[in-house]
């Protein structure tokens, strides 16, 4: 009975300490991954279980990205995490493709994005997805249309590459900064992606491209289009992307999904 009486206040004390510990410990500012080891070292300590370790690092990359996206929108360690992940699991295509887009789009580091994609192509020379994303990044972010066309062409030569890759190679070279190509590229990325994060990014980009065209229409004609079909009829866009979750509509001059 005495022991039980001693146990109850101890348990209460422990609960209080646990509840307060987050208040007492100051939140780290950017140093959360300061000791994140390098790929070859993780490769050695994970001996034989590289894929399992790589999965944990992939999850860590998602948590890191999500955490910073909700907070400061800065990702100084994103490349490092993805680099280690791809050292351990060099065949994991989404780490290269999704990682490449996140580095270029959110982290604004196209140099790191290219490094990651080049590494991916070196390790997976037969896959079409990585040169396709490299072409995509050249088109959308670095605006180097010749390079974009070159990488789309390389992608089209790979085994299992969809016909669309060759069409992109031609379009990018012919149309330079065409709105239609951007629309098609984002829609293609939306379709090939298995990642909800990349799909969400593609939907946002598609919405922005369509909204920009609505504003161009207003500037040119002096009034807003009645519907998205009017944008097709007047050659502002050539198609309306059909999404799994609904379709784009023009409501009160704003693009939305229904």
């Amino acid at each position: 009975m005495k022991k039980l009486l001693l146990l109850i206040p101890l348990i209460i004390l422990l609960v209080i300490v646990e509840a307060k510990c987050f208040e007492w410990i100051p939140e780290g500012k950017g140093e959360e991954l300061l000791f994140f080891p390098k790929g070859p070292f993780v490769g050695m300590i994970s001996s034989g279980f590289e894929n399992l370790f790589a999965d944990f690092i992939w999850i860590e990359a998602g948590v890191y990205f999500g955490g910073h996206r909700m907070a400061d929108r800065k990702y100084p360690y994103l490349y490092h995490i993805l680099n280690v992940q791809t050292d351990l699991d060099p065949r994991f295509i989404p780490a290269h493709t999704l990682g490449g887009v996140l580095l270029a789009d959110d982290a604004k580091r196209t140099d790191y994005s290219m490094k990651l994609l080049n590494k991916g192509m070196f390790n997976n020379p037969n896959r079409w997805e990585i040169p396709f994303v490299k072409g995509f990044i050249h088109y959308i972010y670095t605006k180097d249309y010749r390079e974009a066309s070159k990488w789309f062409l390389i992608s089209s030569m790979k085994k299992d590459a969809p016909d669309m890759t060759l069409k992109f190679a031609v379009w990018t070279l012919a149309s330079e900064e065409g709105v239609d190509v951007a629309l098609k590229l984002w829609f293609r990325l939306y379709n090939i992606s298995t990642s909800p994060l990349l799909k969400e990014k593609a939907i946002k980009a598609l919405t922005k491209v369509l909204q920009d065209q609505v504003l161009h229409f207003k500037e040119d004609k002096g009034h807003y289009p009645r519907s998205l079909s009017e944008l097709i009829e007047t050659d502002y866009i050539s198609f309306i992307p059909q999404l799994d979750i609904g379709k784009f509509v023009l409501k009160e001059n704003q693009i939305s999904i229904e």
Partner: protein
Amino acid sequence: MSRVFAIASNTFRESIRDKILLSLAVLGFLLIAASKVFVPISIGQQAKIIKDFGVGLIEIFGLLIVVLIGTRILYQEIERKTIYSIISKPVTELDFVLGKFLGLYYLIIVIQLILFSIFILFMKFYLGTIDWFLLNALYFYLFEFLLLDAVAVFLSCFTTPITAGILTLLVFFVGQLSHYLKDLVVVTGVSELSVLVNFLYFVLPNFSVFNVKANVVYHLPMSVNSYFLAFSYSILYALILLIISSLLYSLKEYQ
């Protein structure tokens, strides 16, 4: 041979009653199921995560069974003094060591089959399809654990269970890094190391021969040679270790 199987079946029956085994089996089941927990944060890669976790955790549980149970089976006989009833019968040291080795190996086969069956059910339940190519890993695991079982029996001949357990784990992990050993001389540039490194490379079992996890998850082609290598390498190595173990055991008993 009947004497060997009698010892093996007895060892199997004893091991299956071990509380550690039950705890490991429950933990194995829970952890394979727990891979589902990571699915919402897997950024759309649930199929790969579930496959990697399943294949990786099944290997880890095989390893734990060998380390926690395999390293105790010889020691328990001496501790409980049941060894005297065995050596009083016409049983050679090799029969005894082989029997113990096979008893543990039966247990590993049964546990591996159960864990793979659970994993297949999880795949069907969570992914909707079964990736039968992953079963290639089972073939390699069975030969990997055959070798590791022999290592554990060998080490437990001359050490305590705790030391044998730690050494078995070390041999397993260093054996996975065999390919790094060769690179060590090149990276450090110390040519004097090459004799030692080459010695370790050939003496320590090379467990990377059985590491096909990436191949089975990514459906990479595997040559017939790799199947033959896993089979022949583990059987040859295990046989040599078991013969040395029986020699050590005879020295230990009759000193």
